[in-house]
């Protein structure tokens, strides 16, 4: 099977390791991965901030970049949700991409039909289900099932897991105090689990939480799910 990777702008510029991990994981599972170089950003930040007109060119670019691919894999719940839920309001051509876009855990569980991806990650992990994956995509138990199958991994329940971490795109800078208060509560909950790793499937949330963790010098590391799933005994995550 051949798929296109939609790495997303945040991962491209800030978290390339997530993109690399996604490629290694998919290739390990026998999937051939393409990276259409014309891709940039899905337009979500512009759209959610109220700049529909400025979103249009990015929607058209994204749709064109993935023309001809039956499966477009995105390691980001919110970007997948943008394409699936909001692209239809940009016309029929844009609407056509939605059904072909798969958030990474959807692709693994629903398309490939795997939950044990042969990963090894000997650490204590807690999982934060980001809002758009949780509510707009309905990812449900998929990420948890994937994590539970990872060898050596101890999954611990995150209290208040379904509460927003406070990122919210431009919300984080337009309402910095409320955003930080939400982030602090999320981190307090994560620390209470005793986990070493706070795992998520959306690096934008982890950009916010990870930035707070580093500022606070807390003994917890934010990490994308793809990097855990890519880690094996032969090539462990470091």
């Amino acid at each position, binding site marked *: 099977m051949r798929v296109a990777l939609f790495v997303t702008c945040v991962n*491209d510029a800030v978290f*390339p390791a997530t993109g690399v991990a996604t490629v290694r994981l998919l290739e390990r599972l026998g999937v051939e991965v393409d990276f259409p170089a014309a891709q940039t950003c899905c337009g979500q930040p512009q759209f959610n901030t109220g700049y529909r007109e400025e979103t249009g060119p990015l929607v058209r670019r994204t749709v064109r970049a993935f023309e001809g691919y039956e499966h477009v894999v995105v390691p980001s719940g919110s970007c997948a949700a943008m394409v699936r839920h909001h692209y239809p309001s940009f016309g029929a051509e844009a609407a056509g991409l939605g059904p072909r876009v798969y958030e990474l855990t959807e692709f693994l569980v629903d398309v490939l039909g795997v939950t044990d991806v042969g990963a090894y990650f000997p650490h204590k992990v807690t999982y934060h289900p980001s809002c758009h994956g949780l509510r707009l995509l309905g990812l449900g138990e998929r990420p948890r099932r994937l994590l539970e199958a990872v060898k050596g991994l101890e999954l611990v329940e995150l209290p208040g897991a379904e509460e927003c971490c406070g990122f919210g795109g431009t919300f984080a800078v337009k309402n910095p105090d409320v955003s930080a208060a939400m982030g602090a509560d999320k981190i307090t909950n994560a620390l209470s689990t005793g986990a070493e790793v706070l795992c998520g499937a959306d690096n934008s949330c982890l950009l916010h939480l990870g*930035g707070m963790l580093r500022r606070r010098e807390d003994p917890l590391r934010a990490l994308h799910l793809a990097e855990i799933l890519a880690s094996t005994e032969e090539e462990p995550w470091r």
Partner: protein
Amino acid sequence: MGMPSFPEAAREAVGDTTLRANLRHATHTIRDKRARAVAELDDWAALREAGKRIKDDTLRHLDTYLVRLEAAVTAAGGTVHWAADAAEANRIVTALVRATGETEVVKVKSMATQEIGLNEHLEAEGIAAYETDLAELIVQLGEDRPSHILVPAIHRNRAEIRDIFAEKMGSWGRPAPDGLSDTPAELAEAARLHLREKFLRAKVGISGANFMVAETGTLVVVESEGNGRMCLTLPETLISVVGIEKVVPSWRDLEVFLQTLPRSSTAERMNPYTSMWTGTTDEDGPSAFHLVLLDNGRTDALADEVGRQALRCIRCSACLNVCPVYERAGGHAYGSVYPGPIGAILTPQLRGTSSEIDASLPYASSLCGACYEVCPVAIDIPEVLVHLRERVAEEGGKGHRLEKAAIKAASWVLDRPNTLAAVERLASATRKVHPKRLPGPGARQWSDHRDLPELPAEPFRDWWRKNRP
């Protein structure tokens, strides 16, 4: 209106540890209870969809249903008045109270009368309006502002309420009992004693309504304490001020909302008391009934194809109780009688977006979607928020011109992958000298609370080119 913008007001609330604790305790308590009450009904999704469609049909033919309602209320012995705005509604109510010769009224908790500032208007006209809902009483005695739709004093804990009662009840009527403790039961008892004399002598009652049935002319008030029944039953004159969107077409429609409203708001199978009346009844309750139908911006919201869904709202407060932003910012930060997610989409539609507070409300959300999930009439609050952001951005008020320029520049770069790659490479190449904090709009707000990310040695697209040629 001179009110601070949402982020400014919220900053203060976030720093108030008592307020944070009060809100956290109250919202988390009700959140779990609501989930259990809703889970009891396995047809919840069907009830929610039916409620949404009943309200959509109502709004689509609102003129027809209002005229029908007017005819039914009139036929049953009531008098219907129409008020285009707050000033007109206040004038009508004042004249009606004056005509009775009374100088005091008892009030059932009503969002519509708060929205139009009726109490303040009556006071200026020499008429005392006594709030009788326990939480409204706490707010009125404490000279405070409401901070929640259902529980206006949610920002107060029991100890604060005790102090307000002990200090203030005496100047409004019967003082609080000596040695009043802060147990909820004793506080409720103090309110019972304080208000009873006012109920017994009341000649004029003022209420809102949860529903008005066009088909029958029936008004419905849903409550818990019995203060509503007192105000609706004991006075000789009853004046109900109700937003035009509160009409439902048929008697049967109540079977949906009487199942969804109590479970969504107080997390009960049914609230303790629901009163339904149609015009006047001989020998039972008020002999004069006036219904004041209020527009006050609702037809502006109705004209907005995305925004009009906010008029489906049945004021249950479930969206406030699950909202992580409301939980931390508190109700006052929204600068309106309608706080929380529903307030963030309703207030800018009722009042417009010209003031700083109203223009900031559509951004008072991380778009997490928890509000939409619990809404019993399926208002897609995130969708309306984004839509209102478009309106604010288009109007180009304070800060938005600069923002638009930045967004345009970013979109320009993002529409050119080669330029984007060059920018990414430049950022990565200089990463060793990036500071962890930055000045300037946006960057400062980010880096006040969080480190900037450490940029990678190369962007993903370069890794790809090197490793998967």
